[in-house]
């Protein structure tokens, strides 16, 4: 699982970690049913607290992207993983739009104008 964090990103760390995991699942490195590496290993590699990673994993579980199972750890749920990537890209786009003063509705208008 390839995870990338932007060191200048002002968003809370757990949101960034959730985003990185969404991207990793979305780009096809994990299929439905695959087990994720242990949260402790992810935290260790990223140099952050394990609780931050766990919080990100719980958010993704609530989104329906991940499944927690006793004894089997955390695995990718049976949702289409492409959607996870689109959701993440949309989030990033919204963030970017806000930076330049565009609202959510402005962004929707931009999307509608696209062919």
């Amino acid at each position, binding site marked *: *699982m*390839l*995870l*990338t*964090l*932007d*060191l*200048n990103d002002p968003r809370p760390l757990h949101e960034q970690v959730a985003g990185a995991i969404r991207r990793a699942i979305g780009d096809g*490195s994990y299929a439905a049913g*695959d*087990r994720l*590496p*242990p949260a*402790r*290993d*992810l935290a*260790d*590699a*990223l*140099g952050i607290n394990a609780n931050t990673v766990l919080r990100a994993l719980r958010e993704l579980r609530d989104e329906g992207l991940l499944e927690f199972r006793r004894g089997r750890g955390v695995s990718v749920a049976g949702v289409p993983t492409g959607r996870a990537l689109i959701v993440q890209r949309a989030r990033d786009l919204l963030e970017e739009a806000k930076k330049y003063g565009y609202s959510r509705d402005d962004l929707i208008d931009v999307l509608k104008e696209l062919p």
Partner: protein
Amino acid sequence: MNRALTAAGIWGLIVTAVLVSVPLALRDRLPDPLATHWSGAGPDNHMSFTQNLLFTVAMALVALAIMVGVALHGKAFERRLSRAYWWGFLVGWGLFVIGMELSIVYSNLDVSDWTRARPLGWGVAATMAVAAAGGVLAGYLLRGAPDQAPEPGEAPPRLRLKAGQRSVWVSRVSNAWLAALAVVSGVGALVLGVSTALGLMEGAASGLLGVSVILLVAGLLTSSATVRITQDGVAMGFGPLGWPVRRIRLSKIESAWSEVRHPSQVGGWGLRGVPGMAAIMLRGGDCLVLRYHSGGQLVVSIDDAARGAALLNALLAERVGR
């Protein structure tokens, strides 16, 4: 490989010829049944002349059939190390069976009855030594050309790293069979340990206890592994607890790539090889290969190895660029 199969056939014929002709030539001077097993006190088991002959020939031919099967399976000859293992075992095992047969014949020679057979003595040690030496020599001589390095023109995969970003790669691999081995030997160790403590067993059982504890530890350590690649280098954790950890600094690594490797190419499952050409082989398939500046290699069977190699190469390039 055809050369290997021809050689295996000829070697099988030679071994069988020796195993059949030597006892037959000396049949008049041998008792029937023959002493075939010894304990500290002297011979303690016997077989008829024919049974012993068939048994030794079967020992040689079954092993030969397995080796031919391994060769036909195809992957065993792709790597130098597995070629060395193949030839070494083929020759070593043949010599071992011949040595065993000769020791039995020598001990039974000119005795009136199997109970009077001479002790094996140095025959066992000589058989082991000759078989091991023959195997090592055959493996060394017939290991063939060194493994091909990746094609020089081919650029290793590399990821684009942006300034102000931190990229890490984490992956894990597990083998349910090795985990099951650990569980079974754990239960075995517990049963043997309790029985020994209660005085129900002694002697041989305590020896088995040691073996099952070793199997438990080996099984646990190789049941799963995680690999982390960060700007600090590569860290590999073994076992369900991710401990012990082996760390490799970036400065020691020259490049990385992913490759499909199989346990038959590195000599089996688990931690294999010697430093410089080691393998951490938990399952066949996608492997991460690290090449050191010293020229050595480390192979780790791990999922998603291509992305890990790409990140590692990017981190290495960044290091050089700085």
